[in-house]
């Protein structure tokens, strides 16, 4: 499965939850598949999906899912010790690991070579790290959201992209709509 197929499959699971979605194609795909006020689309700032989602999870009680990528986590590896040492049960980090920088033309990442992000997360002190194959993600994600413990999911999948338009929604509108959904 490629990332867009995974997002289609998990859309019903994450629809009613606060989602912080990674820059580039992941946000564009989620926006096209199932646009919701509970989605915060990153239009820039590669690497910070996990940090933004984690700050949100610490600041309020609702479940938060950060959708991240292997390349983006490699950009901001310092996020994993911060998350591990300040764990909060309402937070799930979903790393869609296709071993490539998808938005920039599928250049390979080190996560598709020798580097294991699940081993890195574990070494950083994250206690519930699950590596899962794409087709098995749904139930794992559902139980992570339902659980009172923070979970890091590394979902291994194929690289590949679909053609789709950029998000033209104004960032302040995205942010305002999202904050209203957080408060609702």
């Amino acid at each position, binding site marked *: 499965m490629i990332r867009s197929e995974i997002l289609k499959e998990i859309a019903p699971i994450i629809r009613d939850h606060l989602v912080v979605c990674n820059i580039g194609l992941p946000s564009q795909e989620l926006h096209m598949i199932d646009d919701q006020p509970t989605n915060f689309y990153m239009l820039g*700032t590669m690497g910070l999906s996990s*940090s*933004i989602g*984690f*700050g949100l*999870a*610490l600041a*309020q009680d609702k479940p938060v899912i950060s959708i991240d990528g292997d390349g983006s986590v490699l950009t901001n590896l*310092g996020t994993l010790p911060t998350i591990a040492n300040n764990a909060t049960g309402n937070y799930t980090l979903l790393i869609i690991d296709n071993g490539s920088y998808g938005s920039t033309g599928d250049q390979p990442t080190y996560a598709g070579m020798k580097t294991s992000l699940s081993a890195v997360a574990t070494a950083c002190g994250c206690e519930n790290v699950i590596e899962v194959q794409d087709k098995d993600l749904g139930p794992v994600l559902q139980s992570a959201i339902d659980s009172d413990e923070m979970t890091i999911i590394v979902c291994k999948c194929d690289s590949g992209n679909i053609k789709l338009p950029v998000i033209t929604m104004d*960032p302040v509108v995205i942010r305002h709509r999202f904050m209203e959904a957080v408060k609702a």
Partner: protein
Amino acid sequence: MNIDKKIVDDLVANDVSFVTTVPCKQLAGVIEEVENRDEIFHIPSNKEDEGMGLCAGAFMGGKRPMIIMQNTALGVTLNTLATLTQFYRMPLPMLISYRGELREPVSCQVEMAVHTKALLAQLNIPTYHFHWQKDVEEFDNILKYTFMSNKPVAILTDANFWGGYGDQ
């Protein structure tokens, strides 16, 4: 006057309850004061742009955030300030130790100090420079201004403000 306590008193009075920090020798006292206050959730960051991401999330979760950092790291935060904090119009007070200014003992610190105000000006970030201890009296107003305007705002605090480096 204990400026560490005064700064953190102002944070609490302005309902700033989520503070992320990357340490600096000058900031050790204020970071300790932040850590000791029940009203503030303190989360150390490994890098300043990561901290700004945490602050963006906390703001959207209903908290007033703040970052405490050193000016030498300003370069690694430029993209985040432009494409996250400013693009989405979020408030972020940045209490920054202004290394490389008067009374600085480490020459390399000067190399980023000479770019600090220029970079902040290039980003149109409102910038205040605390040089004398009495300058801290503006801090409360600066916090109010930051959350009124929904912008990142820089407070540069140099060695003279913190009382120098003792015997160094």
